[in-house]
C-alpha cells in the first residue's frame, strides 16, 4: 500500500518533470545545486514542509533535473544564525538558496551578499525584503479578511467574536490580525470582544481562552490563525459553553474534531491555512530562475482552503497528527509565474 502510493507519487512527479524538460527549451539545470535555508523545525507545519522538500527535491535529483536539493535548518530560530548559514551556503557554491527567513529585514545583508556572489535567492512564507531576492508571499491580511467574510455569510445577524492571535511581535501575526480587523470594520454587525495570544499552539490557545472566557459575553464566532482552533474548542467545552463557529487552520486534529462535530450536530465551518508544500513551489520557482526563465520578483501563493464539501477528502489525505498539505509541481509553479506576469 505504502510502496504503491510512493511509486505512484514518484511516477507523477517524474511525468511532470519529463513534460517540463520537453517543453522547456531554456538552459538545462541538471548541474545546478539548490539549498534550503530553514529557520525553525519545531512544529508539525515545519516538519511537513521539510518532508515535502525532501520528497520533491529528492525526486528532482533522481530525475536529473537538479544536481542537489539539500535542506539545512538552524537550531535557534535566530536571524544571526541564519545569516551565518547563508554565508556558508555561498562558500559551498550553491547555485540557488531557497529560504524561509527568520526575519523580513535582518537577513537582507546576507541575502545581498548571496546575490552579489551570483546566487539566486528565493524566499517563501517568511520572506525577505531585499530587492534582489524573489518572494513567494502569502497574502496573510486577505486570509484574515476571508475569515470574517465567511462568518458574515454564516451569521448575517452578527454578534461577538473572539480573536486568537499568533506569536506577539511576528510579522505574520500582525498581518492576519490586520486583515481580521479590516473585515470586522467592513462587516460592522460583528464586534471583537476579546483577543488573546495562542502562539499558534493548541495548548497555549486553550490556556489563554480558558482564562479569558469567564469575562466574555456570549461568543458567536472565533477567528484564528491556525494551530489554535482545537485548543479553543476544548476551552469552550471545559467551560460548559456552547461551541461557537470556530474558523480552523487545517491541522489534522482540528479536521478530525470538525468531522466528529459534523457527525454529531451538523457543525459547519471553514478551514484555511498555508500548505507546508509551498516549499516545493519555491523549489520549482528557483529551478525556473536557474533555467533562465523570466520570473517576476513577487509571486503570490493561494491558501489551502477546506470546506464542508472537501473535508472528508482532506482528512483522508492528511496523516494523523499532521497538517493538510499539497505538493506543488513544476506545472503549478509555471502557472503561478504566469499569473504574476
Amino acid at each position, binding site marked *: 500500500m505504502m510502496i504503491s502510493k510512493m511509486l505512484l507519487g514518484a511516477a507523477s512527479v517524474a511525468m511532470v518533470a519529463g513534460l517540463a524538460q520537453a517543453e522547456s527549451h531554456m538552459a538545462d539545470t541538471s548541474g545546478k545545486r539548490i539549498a534550503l535555508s530553514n529557520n525553525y523545525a519545531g*512544529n508539525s507545519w515545519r516538519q511537513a514542509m521539510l518532508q515535502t522538500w525532501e520528497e520533491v527535491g529528492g525526486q528532482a535529483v533522481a530525475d536529473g533535473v537538479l544536481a542537489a536539493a539539500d535542506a539545512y535548518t538552524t537550531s535557534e530560530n535566530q536571524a544571526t544564525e541564519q545569516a551565518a548559514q547563508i554565508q556558508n551556503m555561498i562558500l559551498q557554491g550553491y547555485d540557488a538558496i531557497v529560504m524561509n527567513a527568520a526575519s523580513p529585514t535582518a537577513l537582507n545583508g546576507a541575502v545581498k551578499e548571496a546575490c552579489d556572489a551570483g546566487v539566486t535567492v528565493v524566499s517563501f512564507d517568511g520572506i525577505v525584503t531585499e530587492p534582489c531576492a524573489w518572494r513567494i508571499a502569502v497574502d496573510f491580511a486577505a486570509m484574515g479578511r476571508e475569515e470574517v467574510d465567511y462568518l458574515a455569510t454564516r451569521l448575517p445577524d452578527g454578534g461577538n467574536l473572539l480573536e486568537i492571535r499568533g506569536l506577539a511581535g511576528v510579522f505574520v501575526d500582525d498581518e492576519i490580525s490586520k486583515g481580521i480587523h479590516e473585515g470586522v470594520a467592513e462587516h460592522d454587525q460583528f464586534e471583537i470582544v476579546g483577543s488573546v495570544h495562542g502562539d499558534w499552539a493548541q495548548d497555549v490557545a486553550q490556556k489563554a481562552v480558558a482564562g479569558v472566557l469567564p469575562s466574555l459575553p456570549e461568543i458567536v464566532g472565533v477567528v484564528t490563525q491556525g494551530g489554535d482552533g482545537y485548543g479553543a474548542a476544548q476551552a469552550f467545552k471545559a467551560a460548559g459553553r456552547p461551541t461557537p463557529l470556530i474558523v480552523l487552520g487545517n491541522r489534522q486534529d482540528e479536521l478530525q474534531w470538525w468531522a466528529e462535530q459534523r457527525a454529531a450536530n451538523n457543525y459547519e465551518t471553514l478551514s484555511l491555512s498555508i500548505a507546508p508544500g509551498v516549499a516545493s513551489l519555491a523549489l520549482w520557482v528557483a529551478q525556473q530562475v536557474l533555467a533562465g526563465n523570466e520570473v517576476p520578483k513577487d509571486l503570490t501563493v493561494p491558501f489551502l482552503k477546506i470546506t464542508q464539501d472537501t473535508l472528508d477528502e482532506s482528512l483522508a489525505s492528511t496523516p494523523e497528527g499532521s497538517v493538510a498539505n499539497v505538493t506543488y509541481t513544476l506545472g503549478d509553479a509555471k502557472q503561478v509565474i504566469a499569473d504574476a506576469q
Partner: protein
Amino acid sequence: MTVLTKPWIWSCVAAAVAYALILGLTSGRGAGELAYAALSFGAFAAIVGLGQMLVITLGPGNVDLSVPATMTLAATLALKAMGTDPGTAMLGLVIALFVGFGVGIANYALIYFLRLPPIIATLAASLVYQSLAIWSNRGLRIKPPSGLADFATGRFLGLPNVAWVGLFLAIVVWVVLERSVWGRWLLATGQNMRAARLAGVPVELVRALTYISVAVFSALTGYLLASFSGGAALNMGAEYLLMSIAVVVVGGSSIAGGNSNVPGVWGAALFMFLVVSMLNSYGAGAGVRNVLTGTIIIGIVIAASTRRVRA
C-alpha cells in the same frame, strides 16, 4: 513570626488580587469556572516549578534549561508508545518517567564529568533531546488514550485531577525538604557547597538526585499536559522554560539558592495564569500585557525579598 513575613505570602496575595480583579469585571460571574481553569493550568506550571525550585536551591549557577525539551521528549515518546490504545496509560507513564530519569542522569553526567556549568550543559543537552523528539515522531500529534485524556481533564471532589497531582507532589516535596535528612543536605549544599562537603554531606549525590528529580518532574508534566491538551506537540514545552524559573522566583525562593519555598510555587503558578487572564480580560494588547506582567513580577520579588531581610 507573623504570616506577613513569610516570603510565599506575596505570590498568593497577588494571585488573589488578580482573581478578584477579573471577577470585578464580570461582577462575580464565572468565579468557579475561572478558579477551575487556574487550578488546571496552574498545576502544570507548579509541577515543573517544584522541580526547578529544587535545582535552584542547589546554589548559584544551578538551573535546568532542558525543561521544555524534556517535557516534549517524554510526552512524544509516551504518546507514541501508547498510540491511542486503551489501557496503555501506565505504560506511557512508565516511559515518561523513564525518559525523565535518563535525561536527569545525562544532564548530571555532563555537569559532573565534563565540569560544564549547569546552564551550558542543560542548554546543550536540550538541543539533543528536542532533536530526538523531532526524529522519533516528526511532530505528528498522536491522541492520548481516551481513558487517560478523561483523567487529565477530569475532576475529583470538585478540583481538577491534575491539580490533585500537583498538590500531592507539593506536599511530598515539602515533607522531603523540611522533614528529611536529604532536604537538610540539599539546603546545606545550596547555602555553601564547600562547608556542606566538609561537614560530611554527600554533595555530589545530592546534586545528582536533584537533577534527576527536576527531569522526572518535567517528564511527568509533559505526559500530563499532552494527555490534557490532546497530544504532544514539538513546541508544547516552549513557554515552560521561563515559567518554571518565574514561579520559583515569584514564589519567594531565593534565586541564590539555599532557601526554598513550596507554597509560594503554587501561589506563583496560579498568579502567572491569572495575571495573563486578567490583562486579557481588560483588553490589554500584547505589548502592554508583557510590560505589566514584568512590572508586577518585579514588584512581588521586591516585596518578598525586603520582608525576608527584615525578618
